[in-house]
């Protein structure tokens, strides 16, 4: 299938992600059909569950009210996904694979809830800011540890961030568990932290705070995306990060301190992940339980969000919105139980997410279906190409990349 030449370049560029998502939905629909669920009704139900039908002017009355609540949920779920997505994407741009967003998120939520529930005599606005900043700082420090280990002793960041994830999770579980040092005073046998006082909640600006309306966390996420873009594309730091990501040897040859770059990059990533936790804790959780710690996937999903968003700011925001909508649309209480088993729906989300990410891993759609030129893997941030060289302290991969030719495109890593 080739597109007629009348379709503009931007039109084609937009078609790629759209087609990707459509194909993923079709394949997932086939899975449903084969297992005896009606895919059309399911998709309508999921769509209504996301609240995106609120955007249709003809939807009114009670449905509209519910839709607005669902849309608020979708956006509440989107905010932390943007932030963890940025946490992973920033590292990819520097050629680092940050699997550790989950751990950075976890230490962030510990500090966010601790600061938020301590210092009760603080000015509320300052208190909120202090809690957010504390979460970002500890997340940054936690991630910087991995960057430091890579810079100083050459420890592969994949190992260190995986280990730091689990260390964070167990330490946090210890803190909030029964008789743990940070278990809430009112918790009475529940493994949960103190509860945030009302004046330390992020303000809700759309919907009913009691029904978990939309808090300003989404703006923190969007602002972070803008900051990400500005640092990456308009600052000397971002220029250095990209240079190191593409070719650490050339960066070193140009006088860039590659080791320092790894530490700074990871610190920024961790700060994004820490922010994500503060948005959740101050936005709607208001307390942290051991189940929250072990059950959270937002950091891991950040990897998929970043990859789907091709490690750009705008792409990450769009991917986070898609993932947030899917999670909300398939949440058990949003799904019509007569259409699909509410337990099945979240699994469906994972399948769709997996398919989408799988399809973006290659130029399949762009090249074969839409007739776009094969991406050269240049100029655009390609996580793999960057990775190959950054994971590669010596010269082999860089050489190989040069030898392999540039049409090797978006796909090298030296794990």
């Amino acid at each position, binding site marked *: 299938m080739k597109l007629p030449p009348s379709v503009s370049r931007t039109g084609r560029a937009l078609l790629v992600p759209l087609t990707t998502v459509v194909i993923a939905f079709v394949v997932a629909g086939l*899975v449903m059909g084969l*297992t005896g669920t009606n895919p059309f009704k399911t998709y309508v139900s999921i769509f209504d569950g996301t609240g995106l039908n609120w955007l249709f002017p003809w939807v009114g009355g009670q449905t509209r009210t519910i839709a607005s609540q669902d849309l608020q949920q979708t956006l509440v779920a989107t905010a932390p996904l943007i932030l963890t997505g940025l946490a992973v994407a920033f590292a990819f741009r520097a050629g680092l694979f940050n*699997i550790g967003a989950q751990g950075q998120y976890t230490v962030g939520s510990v500090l966010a809830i601790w600061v938020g529930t301590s210092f009760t005599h603080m000015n509320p606005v300052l208190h909120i800011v202090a809690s957010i900043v504390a979460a970002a700082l500890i997340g940054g420090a936690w991630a910087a540890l991995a960057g430091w*280990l890579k810079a100083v*002793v*050459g*420890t*592969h960041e*994949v*190992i*260190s961030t*995986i*280990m*730091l*994830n*689990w*260390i964070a999770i*167990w330490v946090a579980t*210890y803190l909030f*568990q*029964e008789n743990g040092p940070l278990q809430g005073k009112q918790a009475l046998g529940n493994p949960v932290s103190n509860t945030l006082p009302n004046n330390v909640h992020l303000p809700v600006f759309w919907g009913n705070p009691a029904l978990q309306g939309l808090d300003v966390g989404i703006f923190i996420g969007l602002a972070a995306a803008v900051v990400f873009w500005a640092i990456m594309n308009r600052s000397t730091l971002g220029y250095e990060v990209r240079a190191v990501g593409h070719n650490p040897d050339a960066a070193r040859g140009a006088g860039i301190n590659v080791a320092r770059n790894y530490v700074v990059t990871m610190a920024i990533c961790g700060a994004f992940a820490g922010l994500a936790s503060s948005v959740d804790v101050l936005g709607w959780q208001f307390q942290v339980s051991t189940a929250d710690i072990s059950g959270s996937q937002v950091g891991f999903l950040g990897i*998929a969000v970043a*990859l789907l968003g091709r490690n750009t700011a705008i792409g990450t925001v769009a991917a986070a919105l898609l993932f947030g909508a899917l999670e909300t649309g398939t949440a058990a209480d949003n799904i019509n139980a007569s259409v699909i*088993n509410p*337990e*099945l729906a979240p*699994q*469906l989300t*994972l*399948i769709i*997410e*997996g*398919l989408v*990410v*799988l399809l973006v*891993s*290659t*130029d*399949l759609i762009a090249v074969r279906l839409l007739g776009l030129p094969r991406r050269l893997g240049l100029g655009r941030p*390609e*996580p*793999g190409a960057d*990775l*190959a060289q950054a*994971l*590669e*302290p*010596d010269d*082999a*991969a860089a050489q*190989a*990349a040069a*030898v*392999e030719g540039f049409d*090797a495109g978006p*796909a*090298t*890593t*030296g*794990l």
Partner: protein
Amino acid sequence: MTTVTKQPPRVAAPTTKQIGIVAVVLAAIAWVLTLPPIMARTPVPSIVLGVTAAVIGVAVLRDSNHRRLGGVTVAIGLIAIPLAIAMTNQTSANVREVFTWSAVVASGLTFATPLIWAALGGIISERSGVVNVGLEGMMLVGCYFGIFGADVCSSWVLGMLIGMASGGLLGLLHAYFSIHLRANQVVSGVAINLLATGITGYLFVAHYGDNGTPGTLPQVPNVTLPVIDHITFLDDAVGRQTNLLTWVGLLLVPVVWWYLFRTRAGLRLRAIGEQPRAASTVGLKVVATRYGAVVTSGMLAALGGVYLSDGFDGSFNFDMTDGRGFIALAAVIFGKWNPFGALAATILFGFSTALAYRLQTFSQTLGTLFQALPYVLTLIAVAGLIGRSRPPAASGIPYVKE
């Protein structure tokens, strides 16, 4: 012409490295003095040894070539001190219960087994030049289909084969995307993990519903070794309670090593992972070999999954691999893409996990904190001993035929 050559000194002065290693040994002794079977009831000898090791470590640190060794020496020397104090503060019955070494070995092997399988899979795939971040997903489908097969066919052998086939299929998908479509292998691997979580969850709900997998299924059996099951210590450690898949996994380590480094086929595989273009020029089949390696990798990882579900647990649950695939990935890097190195990593990890569980005897509250021990130890070991590691040169780079 006569020249007077200086006599080499009779006893060569010990190198910094040797001194450091002696200090590490001292620190290790400090660790075990208060544990069974020695069970010293005073921390003093351990403290003396630990401090000595740490002091030597500081000296080693000053040699810029051996910073890492020095750091490790100081760390383990100093850790020995609170450890010894803690142990001597506990009742000796408690200490004996926690450090029942035969039980530690038995449960350490349990924790290590799924990792060994997945890590071997990871090594084979990466040695051929394809990064496999999807190990986690391949294990997970092994978990589900192992149980499913055992249930449907009423046979653990068929369960194992079906589980293996499911991992192979997922490997084939990864291979198709990363080799044929030249996908970004990290992205494809992450996708594989998401897909596997979704597919197994979906099928689990659709097929088993709320009741979960049946309680009594034909499970992969434990092996009772003749003779050894009558020898003290060994009987409890490995004589009776060790799973068939554990033994096979352990045996596979030297087999895979021998294949990679002592056979022509292994040499070809490594050549393709280092210099695919050169390998292709001399007539090696890059694409076919990589397909084979990735599919094999999926099958091996899936068998690790089968062990988890049908070997150890006897049931399946959502996302039951719980990050083990990533630990295996870490083991691959830790072991520098060598089966024995990866084995060392999985053993370190498995045994410290086992110890962490047993340490809960001392304190339920602190027990949770001890759960972090395997990860802390792995991190220290990697930072302290392994350092920089170099992956196969072409790993992650799609092969484009000229």
